[in-house]
């Protein structure tokens, strides 16, 4: 089974109104090339589930988003994502704001086919005030009340990996795979962009096979896009692009997202990469120091 397709073909699998989970964390290993392909599409009314960064900001700024399910949206070194902020402050989007761990439980519930997982997280906070759909239940084993974190069932998950074979075996080589495995498992259709397509034999080394965090049956499409996480990081290959993020952030006050898009987005990813300095420049971006 050869799951390799183009970014455009992958995005063509997404429909208006779908719930789309996006892997990565803040400015780290986001499937930005796939996000850019959505920006170039006619898609609309998406519900986005993410440990959010510029992926969420760009999709909000370009009118693709009906609702964001989030615990944070941040660029880390720029704490507040400028376009997500605008969208919220303009009242443009619906939100389901949850705790980071609640999101993980919601993804796990979806992955495991459960309606919910109980948790004490959220009790006593406005997470519950503003999410009347999240139910609080009694336990059959104690006298406490518990939040029933509902499954976050995804229609599509978008993930960026380091390597994949044509059959969808995906490797994340960086120090952390974040919650990408749960995004992948929670989705009906998991689309993975990767730095490099490799032969299956690449994974024979157990150390490499250990960096494969879900079964290939979970992967539905493989899109080879070297540099596809830019401007976010793809540790160990490259760091996030600090000057680019600064320009992105500044654009929110000067010109707006249309100016940013006009300057960078372009009609194809190849052209995008040329505009940001080329693949070699992306690969040369230094890793962040925390």
């Amino acid at each position, binding site marked *: 089974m050869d799951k390799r397709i183009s970014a455009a073909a992958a995005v063509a699998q997404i429909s208006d109104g779908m719930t789309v989970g996006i892997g990565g*964390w803040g400015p780290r290993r986001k499937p930005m090339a796939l996000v850019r392909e959505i920006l170039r599409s006619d898609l609309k009314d998406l519900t986005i589930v993410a440990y959010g960064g510029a992926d969420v900001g760009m999709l909000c700024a370009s009118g693709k988003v009906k609702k964001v399910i*989030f*615990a*944070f*949206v*941040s660029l880390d070194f720029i*704490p*507040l994502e400028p376009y*997500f*902020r605008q969208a*919220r*402050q*303009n*009242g443009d989007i*619906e939100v389901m*704001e*949850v*705790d*980071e*761990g*609640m999101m*993980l439980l919601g993804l796990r519930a979806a992955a495991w086919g459960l309606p919910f997982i109980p*948790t*004490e*997280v*959220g*009790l*006593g*906070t*406005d*997470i519950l*005030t*503003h999410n009347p759909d999240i139910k609080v239940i009694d336990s059959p084993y*104690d*006298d*406490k*009340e518990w939040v029933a974190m509902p499954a976050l069932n995804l229609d599509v998950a978008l993930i960026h990996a380091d390597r994949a074979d044509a059959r969808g075996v995906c490797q994340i080589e*960086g*120090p*952390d*795979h*974040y*919650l990408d*495995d*749960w995004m992948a498992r929670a989705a009906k259709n998991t689309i993975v962009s990767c730095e490099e397509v490799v032969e299956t034999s690449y994974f024979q080394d157990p150390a490499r096979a250990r960096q494969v965090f879900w079964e290939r049956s979970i992967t539905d499409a493989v899109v080879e896009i070297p540099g596809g996480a830019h401007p976010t990081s793809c540790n160990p290959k490259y760091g996030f692009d600090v000057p680019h993020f600064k320009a992105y952030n500044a654009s929110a006050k000067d010109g707006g997202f249309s100016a940013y898009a006009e300057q960078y987005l372009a009609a194809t990813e190849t052209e995008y990469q040329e505009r940001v300095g080329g693949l070699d420049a992306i690969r040369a971006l230094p890793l962040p*120091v*925390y």
Partner: protein
Amino acid sequence: MTAATEYSLAELCIVAAAEAFRDDGEKLATGIGVIPRLGASLAMKTFNPDLMMTDSEAFMLSEPNPLGDRGADFAQANESWMGFSRIFDNVWSGKRHAMLGPTQIDRFGQTNTSALGGTYQQPKVMMLGARGFPGNSICHRNSFFVPAHNDRVFIDGECDFVSSIGYNPARLPKGRALSDVDIHRVITNLCVMDFGGPDHQLRLLSLHPGVGVEEVLENTGFAIVVPDEVPTTAAPTEEQLAIIAALDPHNQRAYQIKDNPPGVRG
């Protein structure tokens, strides 16, 4: 253990932050921001070597990393993988003490990191989001660091958005006690406090050198408990300053409190 005579307010706060982790035993100490992180690191390097700390990325360390660029030769002291997904196993187990800086703190110790003003559908100022605060606050010990103590942080009334559970009886979940919540220390540029007053009221524990009770009260939007005798926050020792300097070789601590004032008011 010589008390230093020259030190910055940031360094005083780092030492006060370290004290917050003294009795934690073997907990994951998570200091978000330069001063909390240096506080946790100082505690681990001195009086509580049992603390655990991550590289803020994916590994637990047996020695805290210095802040900022560490040079090409630096090799961090990994002791276990600790990616974000595993952090939640730790959070939910309760074996953690996080210190961070919320935008609003109300008289119940509830905090806000999410949104200010307007309506929830259209806030006036959108901030980070609830992040992990709901989980942190109900699962484990937390402390707060506030670099600018004023009544926009310590607000009159309840937080615009309650990101973390505090000691608010009206929000107490069924089957739980207010004393299950564990807000340990509140450290500001003026003083050290805790929620050890009657009915978990905020209480003054020590004043930084040269700060008066009145200044704290004026800058706090709600009543706090002031004991008859309020000690002065302990000055760093020379040994502590040396360790702090080694942990922060690029002097990031100088940029954490406005104008980087000295520890003893002029």
